[in-house]
């Protein structure tokens, strides 16, 4: 039995030694959508994602994934791409595929091997000797080869060149499970806004906007990138007499 919502947060708060990283977040995400989690660096995107996948315990509040609190079940339906490379240095591509096959029932090994072949990555290649970019590709393959209910992609396109960005985004939209929901966190909006159904704006740990992309465009006649810039505009220091003109 599936719940209607794949993510449900109530009053979610996370303090780090007194500083609020998340402040009373209420968030409901439906199924079968691609959602952008947008905010500047340090706004709480990674904290929220870590709470959703059970790497962090919230200070207050509640989170339900697929109707359950973070635990073994929710981890089995979440496919998570961290902004770190997480491989043990002894493994080959084959080994990590074995591991995903053993732990995740929804891992499609055939698909993963095909994606590897198309990217020119050998199954016997050692992960330790790969470049950072290639390691990230292998992680993307692992994450997108699962038929997950929820994909949590933390900054998948940060720090790569524009050609690689297109490649990564194409891989994501062509391979996700259509019944599942994809959450992409980023501060590079213009690159991804076209593939988004909904956006969640997060600012200083508070959700300031959660709306369908088409509704925003209809209402404001602006690109999400421009709306984002308006929302997060910082007033530059104009000098002492800056406002006299």
């Amino acid at each position: 039995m599936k719940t209607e919502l794949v993510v449900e947060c109530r009053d979610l708060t996370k303090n780090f030694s007194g500083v609020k990283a998340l402040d009373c977040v209420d968030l409901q995400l439906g199924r079968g959508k691609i959602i952008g989690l947008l905010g500047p660096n340090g706004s709480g995107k990674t904290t929220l994602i870590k709470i959703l996948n059970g790497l962090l315990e919230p200070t207050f509040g509640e989170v339900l994934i697929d109707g359950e609190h973070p635990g073994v079940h929710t981890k089995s339906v979440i496919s998570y791409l961290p902004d770190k490379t997480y491989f043990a240095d002894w493994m080959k591509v084959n080994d990590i595929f074995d591991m995903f096959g053993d732990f995740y029932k929804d891992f499609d090994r055939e698909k993963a091997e095909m994606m590897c072949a198309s990217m020119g990555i050998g199954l016997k290649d050692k992960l330790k000797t790969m470049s950072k970019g290639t390691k990230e590709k292998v992680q993307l393959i692992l994450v997108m080869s699962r038929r997950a209910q929820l994909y949590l992609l933390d900054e998948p396109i940060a720090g790569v060149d524009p050609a690689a960005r297109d490649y990564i985004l194409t891989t994501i939209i062509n391979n996700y499970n259509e019944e599942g929901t994809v959450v992409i966190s980023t501060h590079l909006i213009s690159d991804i806004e076209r593939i988004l159904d909904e956006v969640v704006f997060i600012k200083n740990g508070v959700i300031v906007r959660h709306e369908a992309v088409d509704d925003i465009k209809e209402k404001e006649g602006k690109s999400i990138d421009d709306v984002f810039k308006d929302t997060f505009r910082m007033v530059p220091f104009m000098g002492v007499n800056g406002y006299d003109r």
Partner: protein
Amino acid sequence: MGWNLDDSRPIWPQLKERLMKDIVGGRYVMGGPFPTVRDLAEEAGVNRNTMQRALSELESEGLVITNRTAGRTVTTDEELVAETKAAIAADNVGRFMDEMASLGFSAEEVIDIIKKKGVENR
């Protein structure tokens, strides 16, 4: 990546317009197979939900037909295609005339210009 789209407007109407033009412009054979949502979304560089919405609109207008067995096909209704073509033309001309009017040209002057241009091109 993908089609040339305007990010300041909702995406799905733009996809719909583009697909309408492709259909009436003969890119797809009438009565022939129409690409899948997946392929179109990949080509356009948008997500499948957005493409699906555009296709649903085309379906409700009858330009694309969904068969249970054969997947989607392009309409065989020539009259509908002609109508759509005319509507697109009228729409384009209307916008063009507005633009010209804002530059101060009268309808007659515009027609003269078009005639001259047509002779040159020949």
